[in-house]
């Protein structure tokens, strides 16, 4: 949609990584900790300049292990806090994330993902889907995972991430990639409106006027840990029921339904527009929340369409969640492009094939 004049006036040409910073500040986040890693350095660099100016705290940690534990301490203090990193750094945070999930501490963790495994490369990738969505740490916890696909969403989903973190007392992942992090495009800095209470009676602020309290993940007595696990599970079910989000794009009457998230979804939109021009009934379902996965929407799309094309910038991860949602496995095709951005042309070729057109 080409922008209206009035909107145009308010648009800013902004880098995805910077939009995250603006969203965090708008949402009241005043504490950021991090450790440098490409391709997300714009975030600490921007916040190291901005936060002190507004009475916030920017602190560079000695490592990502320290970073996630700084977050744990600040979250336990009842303050909104964020970090950002990429591949290797996120892996180093897994123990801390598991502790935060177990201690039910809210925080926002941004992964501007790059190529792996290992040092891999700085090329964009969606190879960290499993790690983010299935929980890379021990103990089978789940994190809410949001997948922005535009600079606008880098801003708005960051604000949402803080609300969901507080609402469910859980760490929330923002899963972007090098493309969406590094690119600039116009976006509108909409005001932050929140329905979520930021009251945190559980926060540790000293026991003046009340009994002492603690925040922990250790449950040794009897079957306390079993109970705790079921409580967490119930919370995850609540999240599944209430927080799943997705964007349908030209889905009405689509015979070929593409399912893709984040940057990959951008490219798919172009390919689908081209396909429609060729008279192919193609559409896109874009999961905005990866956990909770938009199960109902995927089920419906799987039922109503003839073919499903799952497109990911990896060798096949979200496609498993699609199969978990629906028994129509035979409809599902996968197109993967690990560590690189697929072109609309490549995707159009697959769409044509699934639509029974010769390429």
């Amino acid at each position, binding site marked *: 949609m*080409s922008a209206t004049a009035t909107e145009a006036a308010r648009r800013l040409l902004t880098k995805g990584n910077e939009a995250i910073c603006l969203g965090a500040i708008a949402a009241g986040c005043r504490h950021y900790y991090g450790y440098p890693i*490409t*391709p997300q350095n714009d975030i600490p660099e921007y916040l190291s300049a901005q936060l002190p100016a507004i009475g916030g705290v920017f602190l560079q940690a000695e490592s990502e292990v320290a970073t996630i534990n700084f977050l744990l301490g600040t979250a336990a203090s009842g303050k909104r806090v964020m970090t950002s990193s990429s591949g290797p750094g996120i892996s180093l945070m897994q123990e801390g994330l598991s502790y935060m999930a177990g201690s039910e501490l809210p925080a926002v963790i941004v992964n501007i993902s790059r190529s792996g495994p290992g040092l891999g490369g*700085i090329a964009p990738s969606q190879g960290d889907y499993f790690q983010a969505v299935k929980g890379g740490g021990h103990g089978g916890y789940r994190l809410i995972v949001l997948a922005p696909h535009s600079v606008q969403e880098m801003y708005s989903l960051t604000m949402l991430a803080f609300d969901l973190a507080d609402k469910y007392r859980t760490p929330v992942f923002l899963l972007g990639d090098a*493309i969406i992090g590094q690119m*600039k495009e116009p976006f509108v800095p909409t005001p932050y409106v929140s329905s979520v209470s930021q009251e945190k009676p559980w926060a540790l602020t000293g026991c003046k006027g009340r009994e002492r309290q603690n925040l922990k993940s250790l449950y040794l007595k009897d079957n306390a840990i079993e109970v705790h696990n079921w409580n967490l599970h119930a919370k995850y079910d609540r999240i599944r029921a209430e927080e799943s989000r997705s964007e349908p794009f030209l889905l009405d009457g689509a015979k070929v339904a593409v399912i893709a998230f984040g940057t990959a979804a*951008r490219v*798919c*939109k*172009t390919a689908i527009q081209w396909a429609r021009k060729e008279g192919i009934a193609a559409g896109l379902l874009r999961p905005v929340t990866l956990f909770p996965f938009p199960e109902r929407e995927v089920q419906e799309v799987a039922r109503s369409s003839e073919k499903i094309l799952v497109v990911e910038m990896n060798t096949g991860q979200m496609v498993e969640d699609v199969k978990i949602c629906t028994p129509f496995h035979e409809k599902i095709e996968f197109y993967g492009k690990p560590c690189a951005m697929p072109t609309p042309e490549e995707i159009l070729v697959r769409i044509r094939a699934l639509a029974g057109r010769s390429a």
Partner: protein
Amino acid sequence: MTSDIIMAGFGGQGILMIGNLLALAAMEEGKNVTYFPAYGVEMRGGTANCTVVISDEEIGSPVVGHPKSLLIMNGPSLERFLPLMAPGGDLIINSSLVDAAQVNRTDVRLLSVPADEIARNVIGSRQMASMVALGAYVARTAVVRLSTLNDCLPKVISKKYEKFIPLNVNALKEGAALAGIHA
């Protein structure tokens, strides 16, 4: 209508700056636009490049495999990007540093701009070379109005260097002139 361009050269030639300026102008004119810079270690070894896509529709990929246009400020960049260029596109080269003879494709519309010379001799600052080239590109393709570029200059040039804005305006004008059109 969608247009895209890859701009490339040495670091320090102001590649990212002109890409940014073009993107801003496109936004000002109400278009959809994406700007994608090279980042990370790619920047090491002193080369820089960026991609700008301008369109009336929602833009999918901010990265293009086969650019419609190229703005090339040095030799190595020509070698790297020319083979990728889409047929029929506009190729602007800085003939001061790039040997036009090395353009081994006949299916593109070449525009040789002695950007360094013009910058040094006409504008009076070698720093302005990339602005000259941008002026030429914009005049050649009319993807945005030259006047919009001028209007946007203050947004990309820090207060500290305000005084150089006239120089930049000049550079854009001279570049445009070379493209055979007068702003």
